[in-house]
């Protein structure tokens, strides 16, 4: 089984340095792209691979790139941004790639910037990822010294400057238009779309924002081609994916596996099954903003379309397990409290609705909830939905809430009937 993204990563040791990376074939793809491929050919290759964005939304990367206008005028800049603001509760996959193999990301970014003809690129990094920041800064210095960054890269007429921007906190910075406002030194509130960032992004210029895992694929695509990429997966969507499991399992961790492995394989073979004495009740399959899957979904294949067909989302591919000794109401309350706290306050359903939801859930958990709260929670979840808000924050918050109310209905009722949490 091939593990292109993680084969060189050794957890616990230092990041892969330039020498090691080059010896393993690093920066050969960059040379190939700059010498033998037109920018449009790189975009076409990514389109042909159907690489879906790995940040959570699963938008086709090649299509995102092809929306950027082709302009020859270098006085009008374009930008490439790597979204490394990983902060979705339960998600720890980008940190693994950033700490383990920064040159893989940097090479992917240079090739991607060449494809859209951007001459400035930023890595928008979560402030807390200090080890990743140190590794990235060192790797960027190495890349400048080796002539992979700066003016006339590898003797071509392509120039690129790459900067690391360490954020100042807040989950909403990971929303791509909020991220742009944050990079411009403003409050990180989302922007109206359209115009999409590909037309008007950072400083009003065409901008592509891609996730760490997405950009880490690009050098491999140039090296091995679209058909190879498709062959890595067990489903129609190409590639492997970083999958993680956290919660009461024997062996929590992160693994690079083909898209299409089942929830059961991930949970039992890789995460080692539930910790002794704990039973599986459900899981958020792709971070806090995805709908619960329960026991009947254990044979669902972990892929964008199949998880969607089961009523959830693949999201970031990092799964949080709910066990039988954790109260589902407390679990959902914790998640909704996060969303309420992290709402940027820009639009009403999110700003007003999330704290309302959080208070009702707290009250049910404390034993003072009323039966009508269940309808009110469902009402809020419905109006958080897509189309009612500027961005995906409140729709994301709706997912664990609406599915939790459905699958753990009896537990909610029990709290209200007994006027206490049965788990306390």
């Amino acid at each position, binding site marked *: 089984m091939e593990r292109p993204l993680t084969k060189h990563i050794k957890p616990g040791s230092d990041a892969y340095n330039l020498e090691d990376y080059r010896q393993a074939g690093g920066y050969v793809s960059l040379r190939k792209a700059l010498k033998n491929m037109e920018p449009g050919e790189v975009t076409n290759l990514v389109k042909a691979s159907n690489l879906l964005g790995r940040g959570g939304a699963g938008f086709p990367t090649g299509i995102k790139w092809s929306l950027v206008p082709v302009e020859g005028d270098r006085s009008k800049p374009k930008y490439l941004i790597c979204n490394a603001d990983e902060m979705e*509760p339960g*998600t*720890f996959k*980008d940190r693994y790639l950033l700490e383990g193999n920064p040159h893989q990301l940097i090479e992917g970014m240079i090739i991607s910037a060449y494809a859209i003809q951007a001459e400035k690129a930023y890595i928008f990094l979560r402030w807390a990822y200090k080890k990743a920041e140190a590794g990235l800064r060192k790797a960027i210095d190495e890349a400048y010294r080796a002539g992979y960054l700066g003016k006339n890269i590898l003797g071509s007429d392509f120039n690129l400057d790459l900067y690391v921007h360490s954020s100042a906190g807040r989950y909403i910075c990971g929303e791509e238009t909020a991220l742009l406002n*944050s*990079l411009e030194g*403003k409050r990180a509130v989302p922007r109206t779309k359209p115009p999409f960032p590909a037309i008007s992004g950072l400083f009003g210029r065409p901008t592509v924002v891609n996730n760490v895992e997405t950009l880490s694929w690009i050098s491999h695509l140039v090296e091995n081609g679209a058909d190879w990429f498709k062959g890595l997966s067990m489903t129609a969507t190409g590639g492997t994916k970083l999958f993680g499991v956290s919660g*009461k399992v024997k062996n929590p961790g992160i693994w690079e596996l083909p898209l299409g492995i089942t929830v059961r394989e991930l949970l039992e073979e890789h995460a080692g099954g539930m910790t002794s004495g704990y039973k599986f009740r459900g899981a958020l399959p792709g971070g*806090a903003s995805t709908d619960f899957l329960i026991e009947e979904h254990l044979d669902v294949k972990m892929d964008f379309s199949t998880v969607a067909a089961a009523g959830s989302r693949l999201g970031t591919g990092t799964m949080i397990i709910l066990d039988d000794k954790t109260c589902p109401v407390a*679990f959902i309350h914790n998640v909704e409290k996060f969303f309420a706290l992290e709402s940027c306050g820009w639009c009403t359903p999110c700003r007003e609705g999330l704290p309302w939801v959080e208070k009702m859930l707290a009250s049910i958990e404390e034993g003072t909830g009323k039966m009508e709260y269940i309808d009110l929670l469902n009402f809020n979840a419905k109006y958080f939905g897509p189309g009612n808000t500027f961005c995906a924050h409140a729709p994301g918050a709706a997912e664990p809430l609406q599915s939790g109310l459905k699958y753990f209905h009896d537990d909610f009722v029990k709290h209200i009937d007994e006027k206490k949490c049965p788990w306390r």
Partner: protein
Amino acid sequence: MLTEEEIKEITEEIKQYPYPSVACIDALKIIQHHRGWVSDESVKDIAQLLNISNEEVDSVATFYSRIYRKPVGRNVILICDSVSCMVMGYESLYEYISKKLGISFGCTTSDGRFTLLPISCLGDCDNAPAMMINYDHFNRLSIEMIDELLARYK
């Protein structure tokens, strides 16, 4: 008043951007790095340097969770209170630390040694529960480890 060093560092940041206000977050971080927090006076000083209003600077300063608009202790403890850490028992860690230091979330010990704050997911979910003290990460925590960890920070 900003020090010469602070002005120099902020001016360096301004240079890489198309206009000065882009450096607002950088400027706030620079001030916090030197002074531990951002006072009303510093907000005004930054506004003047970036040629924007005090309110604009404060709107940014109060938005971001890692900019402190009140003084904090010499060491800041950030306990992850997100869902994986909840399942793995952050609440008992919080109770222990809170009792030991005699403060709850949002407070600073009277000797100014520690400020205790919650933090959203630290991306260490497979090693939960996790926390940070200043910029140091700690994970797979248990109550037995806390006394020794806190003793390292004076």
